[in-house]
């Protein structure tokens, strides 16, 4: 079953309104489970480790938003695009990230690490070391010429060269060169500061 089909089935038989009605009475349970599983996959793929304890809650929030929107579509809004599923997962996860940031503004890093379930994280020393290198990378990125900084920033975010080329409207070869040269600049800059990535 594709996302659209799942959403179509989740929007209720015969365009029945879903607002204010118990979900289990309106949606086919297997459709909801498929939705939940897809949202779970989307959230798992993107959820930072430090939010892993909240993953199920995030999935639940996203699911409710999808069902709510699917219900609204069933009331005459037309079918939801399948991309809505990912967008709902994104929004729920981003909301939780921001909430998490606000909550811990007053909590020192040491306390926060100590409060976190140990098995969910790397060791505190490893985390500090990685974060330190990360900050050095950010500072080094400021020194790169703009096109290389753009290319390397995206590459560090996990984008492949073809994706970078598409996003920035560059020919593939140019994106490839900028990533390659930008990484060399970054490496050199870090090494000057005594950091070997």
């Amino acid at each position: 079953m594709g996302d659209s089909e799942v959403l179509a089935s989740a929007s209720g038989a015969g365009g029945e309104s879903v607002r204010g009605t118990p979900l289990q009475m309106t949606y086919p349970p297997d459709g909801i489970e498929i939705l939940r599983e897809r949202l779970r996959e989307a959230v798992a793929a993107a959820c930072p480790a430090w939010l892993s304890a909240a993953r199920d809650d995030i999935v639940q929030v996203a699911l409710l938003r999808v069902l709510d929107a699917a219900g609204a579509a069933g009331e005459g809004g037309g079918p939801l695009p399948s991309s809505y599923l990912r967008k709902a997962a994104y929004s729920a996860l981003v909301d939780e990230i921001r909430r998490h940031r606000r909550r811990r503004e007053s909590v020192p890093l040491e306390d926060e690490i100590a409060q976190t379930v140990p098995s969910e994280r790397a060791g505190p020393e490893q985390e500090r070391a990685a974060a330190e290198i990360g900050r050095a990378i950010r500072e080094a990125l400021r020194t790169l010429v703009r096109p290389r900084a753009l290319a390397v920033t995206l590459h560090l975010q996990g984008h492949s060269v073809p994706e970078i080329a598409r996003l920035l409207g560059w020919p593939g070869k140019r994106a490839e060169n900028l990533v390659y040269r930008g990484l060399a600049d970054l490496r050199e800059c870090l090494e000057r500061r005594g950091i070997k990535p």
Partner: protein
Amino acid sequence: MSDERDGAERELELARMRAAFSASNERAEGSGGCPEPDRIWQAVAGELPRAESAELILHTAACGACAEIWRVGHRMAPALEAPPAQARWRANRTLHRLAIVAAAATVLFGVVSVIQFRNPVRSPEEQSRERAAGETAPIYSLTPEDTPLPRAACLLRWSSAGEGTIYEIRVSTETLQVISSAKHLTAPEYLVPKSELAGLPPRARILWQVESLLADGSRATSPTMISRVE
């Protein structure tokens, strides 16, 4: 072999830099003037004018809070997934390209005799550029990168490359020692046997790569993916 080793180390170095860049996001606070998450979503999906996207990208270079949101968007946004036709085009590129990608995969896992394509001699720089080009199938990990996996249930999962695809997987340590491999997998997942994780220290990272044999007979190799075991 030393050239190949250099190339593999470059790939590991990139993986470490990506992990460090991401790690510095956690405690980051907004730097002021942060864009709304919806705009980041649009930028990641390629829906914003390029000049505006470029400004957002530079903002994420300095602002860890927004970089984290961008990373989330990138892992979820559909527009960046290669359409099937393009995936096939990529998988069917010239023999030369496939040989390079296959060589890179072989290098990474220290295997020397698997490739059935001709493997032209390439400098480490050229190999690194090929890897940087990301000329691989649009397979991505569905296993959280940093959440340690229980050794008794070390399940590696990845995105499906379509019906009828057969997968091969190789799992190695950070020092490129292959600890587990499997062929003829019909589902996009692999449970690493507990016994094969026995030699790893606590919280060790494992690197894994998937090669897919698509239904049309073409092959494609995933990027290197990273997971952690308890």
